[in-house]
């Protein structure tokens, strides 16, 4: 029986709905876990609406659990639950808005950034602490502690469980988008270990899809989803037969996922039509250009990077823009744009400089930059790629 699949798909939704019903995140989690344990015993095949079954069962489990306890909070929560029983009964199952509320709680700016990601993966993605620890290559105890601390703060400080009002969204939406973006990125270019972790990518895309379905009028949400889809679409071509990194111009474009590209392009068109461009939309547009036609139109890419730089003048944007500058105006001009860019500890700055220097025939300097980059890269696949490039000088 595919309980795993049901668990992954329904866990976050059920926790979100139970949190609303119980008014307590910890209690909601326990109740949902109880319900899945019951499902494991009782289901031969999942019922037609497994989410509704889990929510109903979890609610009953929570009432049982609360009856055994006698704290004030337990009595309060029990009263709430019993009260809700009087409402017209329908086996509605998980409510999608609840998930949105929970994302905003998990990504609240009052929580530490590391904790936001861990909590989102745990509560909305249904990932186990061990899986999150593996994905980020940090000890399990560290992840567990981050999650426990964050949940305690949500409870003690009364971090609300609600979707922020429209006027709060400019402050509250970016941390949510950042968490999903970082989750995908960590899966796509893992800091260490195997280069690509498909489970993290898939989870980030699933949550971004949910967010886009829940907030279809927020162009940056659509932009983020498009960016993730267009990046994901190229994944099959990103590693060669020997597991080595293949650069964009050398990738076998027939391996790209055409369905995801079509979906991503449609999303880019849809969000840009709204005329409220933001960093994710522009990055999505850049990736749309990369995946359009037989080769990249670098002039368009550069124009988009100029727009991105005006909107978000970060060193990372400057670095990525330099790659486009090199294609349009040549490596010497590109190198000059990197003169004042500082990204301490980030291997892609020396790697990009090395590439530009090599194209200018300045091989000694290029070799030194490749060495610097290889020393900084934490991922073995990327280190091997940099060593090969150096050897080819």
């Amino acid at each position, binding site marked *: 029986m595919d309980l795993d699949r049901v668990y992954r798909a329904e866990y976050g939704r059920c926790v979100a709905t139970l949190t609303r019903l119980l008014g307590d995140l910890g209690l909601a989690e326990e109740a949902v876990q109880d319900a899945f344990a019951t499902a494991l015993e009782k289901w031969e095949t999942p019922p037609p609406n497994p989410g509704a079954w889990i929510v109903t069962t979890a609610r009953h489990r929570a009432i049982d659990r609360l009856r055994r306890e006698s704290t004030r909070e337990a009595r309060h929560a029990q009263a709430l639950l019993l009260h809700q029983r009087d409402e017209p009964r329908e086996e509605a199952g998980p409510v999608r808005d609840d998930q949105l509320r929970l994302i905003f709680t998990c990504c609240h700016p009052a929580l530490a950034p590391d904790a936001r990601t861990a909590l989102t993966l745990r509560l909305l993605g249904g990932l186990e602490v061990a899986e999150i620890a593996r994905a980020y290559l940090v000890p399990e105890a560290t992840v567990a502690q981050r999650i426990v601390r964050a949940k305690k703060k949500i409870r003690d400080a009364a971090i*609300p469980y609600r979707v922020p009002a429209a006027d709060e969204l400019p402050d509250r939406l970016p941390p949510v988008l950042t968490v999903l973006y970082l989750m995908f990125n960590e899966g796509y270019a893992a800091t260490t270990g195997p280069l690509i972790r498909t489970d993290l990518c898939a989870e980030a895309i699933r949550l971004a899809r949910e967010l886009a379905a829940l907030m279809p009028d927020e162009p940056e949400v659509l932009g983020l989803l498009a960016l993730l889809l267009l990046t994901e679409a190229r994944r099959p071509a990103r590693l060669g037969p020997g597991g080595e990194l293949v650069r964009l111009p050398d990738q076998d474009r027939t391996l790209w996922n055409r369905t995801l590209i079509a979906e991503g392009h449609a999303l880019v068109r849809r969000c840009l039509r709204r005329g409220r461009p933001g960093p994710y939309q522009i990055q999505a547009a850049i990736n749309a250009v990369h995946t359009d036609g037989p080769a990249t139109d670098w002039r368009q890419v550069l124009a988009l990077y100029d727009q991105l730089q005006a909107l978000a003048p970060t060193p990372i944007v400057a670095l990525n823009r330099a790659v486009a500058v090199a294609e349009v105006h040549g490596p010497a001009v590109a190198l000059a744009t990197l003169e004042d860019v500082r990204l301490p500890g980030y291997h892609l700055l020396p790697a990009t400089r090395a590439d530009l220097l090599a194209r200018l025939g300045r091989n000694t300097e290029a070799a030194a930059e490749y060495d610097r980059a290889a020393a900084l890269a934490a991922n073995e696949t990327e280190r091997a790629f940099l060593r090969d490039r150096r050897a080819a000088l």
Partner: protein
Amino acid sequence: MKQYLLAVHMVEGAPIPSPEVTEKMYAQVDKINQEIQAAGAWVFAGGLMPADSATVVRSDNGRTTMTDGPFAETKEQLGGFWVLRCEDLDAALAWAARCSEACLGPVEVRPFQDEPEA
């Protein structure tokens, strides 16, 4: 409703702001205090004398000792605070942003423990 402490810290040895700045700060704090009261979020607030005016009292087995100076041996000491009654953390954070602007310094928001049931 929950109660939150909004604490303002003073750094010992930091340059003393000019009288104009201090005056402006007092006026701003007065204004925000009125707004907090009008919104029904007010519990209590006050500014403290410098930490070197503090005395720590310890009572142990009937013996009381006193030491001059603040308890925490750090340069950052509590300088003033608000106690507010708010719906949730977001409401407290929204006041904190405005209080920080008014008092020209960072504001630490800390929830009170819930009152035990009578």
